């Protein structure tokens, strides 16, 4: 099970409203390579992993991604809370406002709803772990794109933290992939049903 801790993993304290930036950051919430995709992908790949180590790393990184989902949501919330209708229109947020108000709908910046089709899951340990390395690199690049879009230090330090964590996750998944390849080469046919 999961236990909720009433705190953010990294502090979010945004003083200046910026609806355009809030809209861009939706990419990290409900976008293809956002934190929802990452957490759901890792947590659901666990069940077909062959080793304790691969189950552990997916559980722990998947759990950290849930904490990142909350950080991203807090950023969007603080960047948009209290916006006036004029600000909403000026930021091109009116379509989102019509559908969802300033609520945190799980969509990307163009309004495309999140879908489980974003989740890469093949029940093949090497395929899944390799795919996770790519997912971390895409998420890192996404945070770099978001960093290009703002000079607000309160926002930048949060995005930088999230970017750094993707680099650490990439490293850990790489090590897990090496171990899975070693395991595979030890005459164990873990991809077949075992009697």
């Amino acid at each position: 099970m999961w236990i909720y801790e009433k705190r953010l993993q990294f502090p979010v304290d945004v003083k200046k409203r910026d609806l355009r930036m809030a809209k861009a950051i939706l990419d990290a919430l409900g976008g293809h390579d956002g934190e929802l995709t990452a957490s759901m992908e890792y947590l659901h790949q666990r069940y077909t992993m062959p080793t304790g180590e691969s189950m552990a790393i997916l559980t722990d990184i998947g759990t950290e991604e849930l904490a990142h989902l909350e950080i991203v949501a807090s950023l969007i919330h603080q960047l948009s809370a209290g916006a006036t209708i004029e600000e909403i229109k000026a930021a091109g947020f009116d379509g989102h406002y019509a559908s969802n108000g300033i609520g945190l709908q799980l969509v990307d910046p163009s309004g495309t709803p999140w879908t489980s089709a974003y989740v890469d899951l093949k029940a093949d340990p090497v395929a899944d772990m390799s795919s996770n390395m790519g997912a971390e690199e895409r998420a890192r690049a996404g945070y770099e794109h978001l960093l290009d879009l703002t000079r607000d230090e309160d926002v930048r330090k949060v995005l930088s933290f999230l970017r750094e964590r993707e680099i650490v996750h990439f490293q850990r998944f790489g090590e897990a992939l090496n171990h899975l390849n070693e395991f595979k080469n030890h005459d164990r046919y873990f991809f077949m049903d075992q009697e």
Partner: protein
Amino acid sequence: MSRKDLMTQIQAVGIMAVDLHLYLDTHPQNTQAAHEYKKTAEHLKSLKAQYESQFGPLVNFGNSSSFDNKCWINDPWPWERQ
């Protein structure tokens, strides 16, 4: 220590604990990392105990030794502006 300062410490030490934990998942034989993790976990536990005794519960569902449901409900939620 103020609520904010104590929370900042919990967040800093908490990130160290997460990072060391992930490292140990793929380096289970590394005794130095295991030692660092144990020290960090003890530090984090004492900071959280101090926070909970002064400012109310951090965790739900019976995982906090002194659960004040009024603090849980009424004190600021993590996503709210400070």
